[in-house]
């Protein structure tokens, strides 16, 4: 039996989780298994081993310790294994190797709304959801009013949840989980839920939890929230721990390296470069206007997109067309070089060209962007590459005035405002203003 280690809330030791590829996707029919077993009873064992070849580790050799009362962030790009780690720690799934020792009760704020049934009322769902999270009946009863108040659904407690808006449902579910008294609180991306005001409440609640001596494990793509909540961060990549240390260091390294993979790409050999008989791409890069592709970009930074390409046919009338998509898959804008002064409208002799597209600062919101490149001749696309570049626009913590929810909208321009006082109450006292 491992010792409790005094003040250690969580000790993870060589944790690993293996998935068999295709285990989830393929449709396993009992009928096939039976008929296979009947037809060729001896083949079964061999087939099993063949399956074993296509395994992959979603998590491997992960070790760390969290002292009691610490808030730890887990960062990493999609597919890094963050959710898998949280699922093991909350015992939703079992590890394949290694072990984790957890002191006390673990509560999760994973995706919320689990177990809500549309036919049941808010009151009934709160009770049920509490029980699913492991609360005793008296505990739920004692906190009921607080929960409902926090979620702001007092007037609808006896209405079936199917009549709730999705926001109300999410708020209620979050509230149940937030009031669960646990020693360790696991939070996975809750900031995606609810409106700005509710997000602020959630951040406050998590801050309270950490201050109140509870251990918090926090997974989020929102680096501003991560940096404000957690002093320490673990960076996972490919299922392994890449870095473990003070949040600013780890997050800085994570952001600068994680996205460089697709912030500059080049294909020096013409034959194997992406393209066709008409054009081939030699290089694509995204960088701050006054920096190099590995430098971070935040919401205020002007950005330059560069594309170098070979034109392989004489006198082609070429245009590039660039589509920028955000993480939600929304087309933010489509850029075309119509204002370019030198080559626009002229036939291109064969040769190597470079186009640079300048995106002003204070335009893109924070988030991940995907760049799609199209080469157009006349009105016909002659070449297209979906994901030629991917880049991350960081938030600028100084521009937000202490608020950490997501800033809504596809773009985030700095617009000029004027406020004018039209009536001065001090002067017009006595006047009747309706």
């Amino acid at each position: 039996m491992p010792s409790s280690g005094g003040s250690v809330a969580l000790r993870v030791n060589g944790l690993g989780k293996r998935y068999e590829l295709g285990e989830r996707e393929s449709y396993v029919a009992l009928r096939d298994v039976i008929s296979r077993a009947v037809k060729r009873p001896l083949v079964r064992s061999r087939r099993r081993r063949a399956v074993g070849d296509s395994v992959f580790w979603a998590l491997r050799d992960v070790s760390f310790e969290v002292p009691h009362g610490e808030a730890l962030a887990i960062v990493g790009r999609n597919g890094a294994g963050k959710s898998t780690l949280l699922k093991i720690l909350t015992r939703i799934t079992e590890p394949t190797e290694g072990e984790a020792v957890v002191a006390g009760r673990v509560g999760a704020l994973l995706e919320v709304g689990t177990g809500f049934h549309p036919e049941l009322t808010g009151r009934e769902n709160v009770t049920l959801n509490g029980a699913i999270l492991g609360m005793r009946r008296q505990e739920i009863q004692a906190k009921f009013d607080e929960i409902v108040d926090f979620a702001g659904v007092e007037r609808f407690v006896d209405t079936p949840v199917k009549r709730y808006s999705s926001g109300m449902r999410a708020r209620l579910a979050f509230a149940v989980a937030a009031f669960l008294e646990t020693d360790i609180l696991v939070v996975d991306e809750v900031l995606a839920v609810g409106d700005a005001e509710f997000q602020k409440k959630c951040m406050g609640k998590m801050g309270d939890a950490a201050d109140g001596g509870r251990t918090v494990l926090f997974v989020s793509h929102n680096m501003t929230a991560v940096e404000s909540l957690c002093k320490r961060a673990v960076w996972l990549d490919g299922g392994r721990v890449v870095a473990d240390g003070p949040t600013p260091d780890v997050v800085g390294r994570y952001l600068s390296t994680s996205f460089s993979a697709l912030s500059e790409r080049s294909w020096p050999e013409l034959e194997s470069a992406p393209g066709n008989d008409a054009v081939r791409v030699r290089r694509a890069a995204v960088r701050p206007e006054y920096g190099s592709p590995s430098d971070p970009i935040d919401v205020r930074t002007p950005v330059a997109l560069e594309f170098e390409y070979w034109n392989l046919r004489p006198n082609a009338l070429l245009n590039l067309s660039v589509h920028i998509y955000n993480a939600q898959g929304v087309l933010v804008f489509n850029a075309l070089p119509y204002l370019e002064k030198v080559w626009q409208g002229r036939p291109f002799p064969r040769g190597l060209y470079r186009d640079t597209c300048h995106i002003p600062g204070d335009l893109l919101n924070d988030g991940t962007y995907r760049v799609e490149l199209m080469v157009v001749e006349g009105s016909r696309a002659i070449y297209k590459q979906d994901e030629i570049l991917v880049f991350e626009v960081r938030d600028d913590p100084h521009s937000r005035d202490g608020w950490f929810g997501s800033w809504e909208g596809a773009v985030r321009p700095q617009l000029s405002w004027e406020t004018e006082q039209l009536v001065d109450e001090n002067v017009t006292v006595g006047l009747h203003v309706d």
Partner: protein
Amino acid sequence: MSSPPLVRPLTVIRPRGARTLVGWAELWAYRDLVYFLTWRDIKVRYKQTALGAAWAVLQPVLTMVVFSIFFGRLAGVPSEGVPYPVFAYTALVPWTFFANAVTQASNSLVAQEAMLTKVYFPRLIVPLAAVLAGLVDVSIAFVVLVGLMLAYGTVPTVAILALPLLVVFAAITALAVGLWLSALNVRYRDVRYTLPFIVQLWLFASPVAYPSSLVPEAWRPLYGVNPMVGVVDGFRWALLGGTESPGSAFLVSVAAVVALLVGGLAYFRRMERSFADAV
């Protein structure tokens, strides 16, 4: 909020963590969840179907009417000296419970996918609650049975005292079968399509429309391997009296249920680890 509790139990999470057949302590800690899930299943079922509670009565009653006309009247199936409608209905009460509970339990894990992939709790609770929810139907169906017995002047004997035990026996049978099928259903997605067929075959392999005395004496022990033989015979014995007390077939059924249950628990336990990955 209040300060964290002083005693923090250590939980060790490691591969193949569960070694016991049933985590009793954990099940006890989650007893409220058993209660709430059962209650939810009942509530939702009665809210969703237009007929609500009437369905619990209509299903066995209509089957009883059809059986009485075709098996009782036209085919002249014997009913051991009891009016055929009472004879059939007495069996249909546990049978309808069993068929519904097994169906609900089998689909329970797949239906609770969202819960399984997002929260930990003893998975056993899901099929268990599905079976327990079915017991409400049994009590409603019993009300009709009492009316039927009064109408036909059937008087029970002291054997009726064994009835609660027999209801428990029926529930355990449904749970044992439900455990197997619910776990298989997660792994093999064609199970749910074969289920109605299995249930239908099972009905005719059980002494619901006919008395088990139709089966030759020598074959009875083998017949008893179907646990519903023991359940249905037990119900008839307890409620209608008259017939001899359940014999060797009943004991075989009890043994079969124990084997099914232990095997089902073990299989469920083994598959439980991968439920969240597979659903």
